């Protein structure tokens, strides 16, 4: 058989500029190796088990991304979830962010509109029986514009959690009125911003007792018609390199319901492609620092200089890139002590073939890239993830990791048949020096791929086991009820600041038992576009007593309590000591004693 090349076909393809994309694709052919390890069954001896219960709980949220033929980047990035007790009834409620409608195509750059209830953000109130009811309309939280992320914080210290919702083209601040309703105070507060915002963090940057607000923006974009075809010439999503980076927005709380933008003034102002944000005091100087997960550029670590300003130290702290100096697609972030050495570590989610970077704090202002030593290279190289949180799934006294997974590119399987747009979530069990894939212990959802995005953690039913809520882009939300063994002990601490911000955000809590010391920073930020329960939870394993709980408040005050019992929820008020004790869902086995400070 003989063939003659067809000149017209070949020459036509020669001129196809998209062919150069193939060259870029080839760029990775010598990159580091990967390993996908998915355990097929849950090792029952681990004592970890979750069950997906969104429908059973009455949460039937469906995120509307409004995917278009134009492949606008906005469509694939949302959205977030928050766990908060908005009505102070002692039970966590769920807030879910939603997209909005806009024309396809949208050459006139019409702002996205929540044109119908299907695009509303949703607030689900948890009833006393553990089921949820949609109270969005009553609460006044349907929202405006294309929602992305959410951050929870009591910015006016009135005892009611407020909501900041990021999105495009503006952000919204909802003040909690304390009666089940919220008021949009965006304009009065001066926090609308502009452009495309993603994750945000409430944190008292100037230690004045009121929460300030850091808002990340992704890049400069406004329905720009960028055609970024696949090698096959099909219109697809653009690499973020196509768009310019943009400064974050940093709002200082003036204590009177108004905020002043101070990014440049305080030095949190490097142009970035920010998707994830988390806070912790990494250098142990008593000042809260800020980590920013950027997409495809250096990651940022803003060191608090203690004089109200910050210095970006990502490169010198070894957290700007992976160990080969390569940038990665930073999305979600955890900034917590993952190895119980009393130092906050960092783990970031990114895209397949990059590995989820783990940076272990060395205690000298620098971090050690530890993905390969911790086994994460093998476990995560073929995965893409967004939301991520550290949680002690089985109350063993060590923190595991859970991530909402899925690739960003809807068409990824056309380009990379071995990669998946939809992925099941990943549970990484902390086995000491290494992590193990325990995803099968998530139950049926471990076999159910979806376009995971937001992820938040909190003990929804106050049973002493931390639950997980995840969102899916253009899909449903998932509630992973933690049904792990209750044989192990735990303690949960809720702080009430007095000199400090009322949420106690930025406080450090150190729990000491006969065998271990654990440490956590109070925060609602972290993960991706999401906001987790502000209470700090510590698994205690088989230890049924706690020697001490030391608290370092954002005000600088230090406080120590000796809780008489484990398996309790303790509320600690700054300067007063334990002001409430609860056994949560179940009756206390013995009457709790209220200890003094």
């Amino acid at each position, binding site marked *: *058989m*003989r*063939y*003659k*090349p067809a000149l017209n076909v*070949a020459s036509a*393809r*020669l001129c196809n500029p998209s062919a150069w*994309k*193939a*060259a*870029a*694709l*080839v*760029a*990775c*052919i*010598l*990159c*580091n*190796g*990967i*390993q996908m390890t998915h355990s097929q069954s849950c090792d029952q001896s681990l004592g970890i088990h979750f069950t997906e219960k969104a429908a059973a709980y009455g949460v039937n949220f469906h995120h509307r991304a409004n995917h278009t033929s134009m492949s606008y980047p906005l469509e694939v990035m949302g959205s977030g979830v928050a766990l908060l007790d908005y009505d102070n009834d002692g039970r966590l409620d769920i807030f879910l962010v939603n997209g909005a409608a806009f024309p396809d195509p949208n050459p006139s750059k019409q702002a996205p509109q929540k044109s119908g209830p299907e695009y509303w953000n949703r607030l689900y109130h948890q009833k006393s029986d553990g089921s949820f009811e949609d109270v969005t309309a009553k609460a006044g939280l349907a929202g405006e514009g294309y929602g992305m992320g959410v951050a929870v914080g009591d910015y006016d210290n009135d005892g009611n959690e407020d909501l900041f919702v990021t999105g495009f083209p503006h952000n919204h601040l909802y003040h909690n009125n304390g009666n089940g309703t919220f008021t949009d105070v965006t304009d009065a507060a001066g926090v609308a911003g502009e452009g495309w915002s993603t994750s945000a963090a409430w944190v008292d940057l100037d230690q004045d007792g009121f929460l300030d607000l850091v808002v990340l923006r992704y890049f400069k974009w406004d329905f720009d018609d960028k055609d*970024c075809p696949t*090698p*096959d010439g099909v219109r697809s*999503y653009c*690499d*973020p*390199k196509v768009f310019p980076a943009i400064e974050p927005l940093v709002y200082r709380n003036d204590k009177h319901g108004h905020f002043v933008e101070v990014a440049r003034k305080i030095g949190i102002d490097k142009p970035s492609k920010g*998707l994830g944000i988390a806070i912790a005091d990494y250098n142990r100087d008593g000042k809260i620092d800020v980590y920013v997960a950027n997409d*495809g550029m250096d990651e940022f670590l803003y060191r608090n200089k203690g004089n109200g300003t910050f210095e970006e130290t990502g*490169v*010198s702290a*070894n957290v700007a890139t992976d*160990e*080969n*100096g*390569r*940038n*990665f*697609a930073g*999305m979600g972030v955890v900034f917590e002590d993952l190895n119980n050495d009393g130092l906050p570590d960092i783990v970031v989610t*990114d*895209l*397949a*073939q990059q590995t989820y970077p783990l940076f272990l704090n060395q205690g000298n202002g620098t971090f050690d890239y530890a993905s*390969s030593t911790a*086994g994460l*290279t*093998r476990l995560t190289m*073929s995965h*893409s993830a967004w939301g991520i949180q550290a949680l002690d799934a089985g109350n063993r006294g060590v923190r595991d990791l859970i991530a909402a997974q899925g690739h*960003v*590119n809807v068409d*990824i399987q056309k*380009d990379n*048949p*071995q*990669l998946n747009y939809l992925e099941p979530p990943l549970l990484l069990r902390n086995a000491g020096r290494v992590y193990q894939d325990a995803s099968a212990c998530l139950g049926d959802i471990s076999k159910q791929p979806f376009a995971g995005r937001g992820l938040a953690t909190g003990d929804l039913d106050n049973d002493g086991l931390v639950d997980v809520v995840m969102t899916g882009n253009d899909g449903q939300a998932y509630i992973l009820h933690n049904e792990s063994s209750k044989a192990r002990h735990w303690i949960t601490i809720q702080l009430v600041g007095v000199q400090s911000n009322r949420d106690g955000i930025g406080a450090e809590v150190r729990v000491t038992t006969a065998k271990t010391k654990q440490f956590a920073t109070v925060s609602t930020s972290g993960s991706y576009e999401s906001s987790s329960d502000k209470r700090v939870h510590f698994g205690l394993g088989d230890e049924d007593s706690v020697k001490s709980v030391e608290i370092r408040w954002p005000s600088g005050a230090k406080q120590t309590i000796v809780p008489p019992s484990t398996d309790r929820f303790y509320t600690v008020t700054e300067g007063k000591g334990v002001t409430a004790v609860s056994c949560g869902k179940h009756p206390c086995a013995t009457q709790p004693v209220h200890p003094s400070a």
Partner: protein
Amino acid sequence: MFHSTCRRSFVSGRAQFFCALLAIVVLLAGSCRATLAQAAAAGQAKSDNASTVSASDLDQAKSLLSTSHWNDAAPLVQSYLVQHPESADAHALMGLILYRQHQPRESMKEFMRESELADLSAFDLRVFALDCAAIPDLPEAEKWLQRSLDVNDQDAATWEALGHVRFSSQHYESTIEALNRALEIAPRTVSSEALIGLANERLAHLDAAEAAYRQAIAWQADREVKDSIPFVGLGRVLLNNNQPQDAIPFLQVGAKAPQPSSEAHELLGLAYSKTGRNGEAAAELEAAIRIQPHEARLHLMLGRIYRTLGAKEKADAEQAQYAKLKESAAP
């Protein structure tokens, strides 16, 4: 975050891409030489109208091609074509020369011209396909390689080329299939086995990758000059498996190759740094930078090692160089 696969350092990626293409060229050099006589014989039959003198020139050109003297052969073939524009054989030779001279578009035109005069041989179809790959138009490259194999499916080099093209298309499972076909025809081919290792790395099959690299290394145990690719690949896999100590001897072979890649030095430096041999790590990163001085991330890596060594000024200088190169590379 879009197009994750495009997100690596473009400078590095570009260098790697050309390395990959170079690998294809190197791969085919032997086989091209081997089949050149066959191609020439076919060309002789086609060149009935050539004059005696010109035919001699063409024979000389073929002789030069057989010893990889592409540039010397080119004017002879060009001259021949002036007098014999209808010589399919000469167009085929010119296509091959232009491919070797990294002028794929011009090469393709010659094959197009040849195709108007005669049927393309399996060899010519393969070179045409590689022109497509060089452009790069990978789907077209695969198509023409398949057609070459339709003509002759017993050509290991074509199967291996197909493996390369599929690898570049990120179709790693089918890459391995093609390479296994190549190995059936030409067993113990180190380059094919090494690429199987690389494809398995990309599939996250690290154990299979390690096995393939070890096999490729074993096949060249008694060779004086060794292909360094499987050594570097095995070192990389062992590093990712958190076995830096085990990786060092293999990476040392890679770094001592006649023309080592910067990656070999980089990974060896990384392995040294992970095992506390920071002085040697610095030396390897310095070597990597000598090969790729404008690769920003290498300066960052070297700066980290200098800092570990307490060489603050040198660390700061490398960090500054990293920032400078990043800034200059920014869009």
